């Protein structure tokens, strides 16, 4: 009897593991194909599209790196400034709502939060006209400023919830000790709120890194392009030249590395970043 029970439990676990392995295989197979194709020469991939490379060649990577390097740095530059802007301005705003009493406080807060209900695509026409009139078409700031502004409502909401949990006594104690408001923010609130700030950093970084549509409208000049735009263009121009995709596939792999590296270095913050941002909504 005990044995049968044990077997039954064991059996369920095997089935669960099998289903997980199948899902894992299905999720990874396209990525695996990308990886092996990125090491193949064009003729190798044509004769043998599904097998391993005959010779593992790094030529695709060498060529892809030369082509996408400037765009990788454009993307990093834009994404890092956006992330810093969102976290800095969002935390100042949230701090104001948590630390101060001021007229129309609730109305102002709802005025910010209500922006969450306007999908970005709705205002894309007037946003474009605006950026154009400000002379920010073909300028990285034409991407950065609207992105920061668009993320302030979410950042404020996320940080305000977390900042409210910090004990008022602690903040008051710092004030009584002679700290200015900015010192309370800089030396008490920010260090205490590190986990939620990391969450915001990760959400903002992924958002900026993935952004395609708006940058493709604003950054028409080739030397200003971000990585996603460059990947799309590189794929079609390389295919036009050679009839293959080896080097663009290598570029896809390279462009996946920054987030992978951040994940491997800070996986704990990364996972909480991915989860807590939405649970708080």
């Amino acid at each position, binding site marked *: 009897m005990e044995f049968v029970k044990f077997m039954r439990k064991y059996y369920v676990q095997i089935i669960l593991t099998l289903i997980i392995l199948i899902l894992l295989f299905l999720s990874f197979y396209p990525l695996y194909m*990308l990886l092996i194709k990125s090491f193949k020469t064009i003729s190798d991939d*044509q004769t043998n599209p599904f097998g391993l490379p005959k010779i593992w060649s790094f030529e695709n990577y060498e060529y892809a790196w030369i082509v996408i390097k400037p765009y990788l740095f454009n993307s990093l530059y834009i994404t890092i400034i956006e992330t810093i802007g969102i976290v800095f301005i969002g935390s100042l705003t949230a701090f104001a709502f948590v*630390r101060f009493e*001021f007229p129309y406080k609730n109305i102002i807060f709802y005025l910010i939060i209500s*922006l969450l*209900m306007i*999908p970005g695509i709705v205002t894309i026409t007037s946003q474009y006209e605006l950026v154009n009139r400000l002379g920010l078409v073909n300028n990285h700031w034409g991407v950065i400023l609207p992105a*920061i502004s668009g993320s302030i*409502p979410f950042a404020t909401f996320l940080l305000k919830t977390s900042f409210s949990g910090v004990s008022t006594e602690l903040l008051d104690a710092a004030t009584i000790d002679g700290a200015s408001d900015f010192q309370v923010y800089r030396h008490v609130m920010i260090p205490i709120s590190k986990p939620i700030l990391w969450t915001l950093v990760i959400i903002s970084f992924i958002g900026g890194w993935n952004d395609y549509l708006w940058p493709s409208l604003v950054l028409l000049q080739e030397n200003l392009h971000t990585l996603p735009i460059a990947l799309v263009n590189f794929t079609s121009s390389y295919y036009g030249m050679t009839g293959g995709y080896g080097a663009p596939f290598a570029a*896809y792999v390279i462009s996946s590395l920054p987030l992978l590296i951040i994940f491997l270095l800070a996986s704990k913050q990364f996972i909480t970043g991915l989860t807590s941002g939405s649970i708080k909504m």
Partner: protein
Amino acid sequence: MRKNQHKTKYQYQAFLWLLPSFSLLLVFSYYPPIRTLIFSFTNSNGAGVGKFIFLDNYIELFTSQTFYRSVFNVVIFIIVGMIVGNFATILLAELLFNLKSKITSSLFRYLFIIPILVPSVVIILIWQYIVFAGGDSGIANRVIGFFNIGNQNWYFDPKLAPISIILTGFPWVAGTSFLIYLAGLQSIPHSVIEASKLDGANLFQRILKIDLPLLKGQIKYFVVMGLIGGLQNINMQVLVTGSGPGTTNATNVPAFMLYEEAFTYDRYGYASAIGMVIFFITLIITIFNMKKLKGND
């Protein structure tokens, strides 16, 4: 008396702290929706406001075959996407949650996070050039080849294009939502699960009667986010399918209609009217959902 109290309490330096956000928000977040509303009553081509034509844009939109086809498509994409997406991610969360070995469970969780790290544009390109590639080199064509079905053109076949868009990302488990569902399951008190075992409930009964009701908050969140995201995500159309093969509009959606009218045909006024309609749909969904949330609590 009350007025006096307020006077001493108010800390007006708060406005200094709000200055950075409001200087950005006024320009980039409050002005554009108002401008879009004005645009929607004009025949603007992007250079200035143009001529006021009152409701003409809206009348044109609501009498356009393309618009109804687009709405039909987006409803299908959102509903099917939401059902299969949530089913797949809840399934994965349950599988990982029910693994006895915590070490294997968290190892699998790590592995399923990796596909999230690939940029979304790259995922689309992988599906276009590797999975749904035409000819013999595509994975999908190879798979149907085992069943003696000839090569298909997937994204570029009028019948298959909408299905291909839905299939993109199969098995749809790699995303942040499985992490959130898993976190939800892990927050169920151990005693509740033990009690269900003592009452003789099997795994499926427990999932149906205990887990799913307790995940209701998360499910609701993903339903709303799926609706709002689904209404405005047009990367697939912009990068791969356009409005669909030929003039079929097989993959067209309202947001892509807006994009094309604005940036291909310079019809800012008409595009803005489409934008206003999308906004009102979002508003209705959000209000409906907030009311429902309140009613339930």
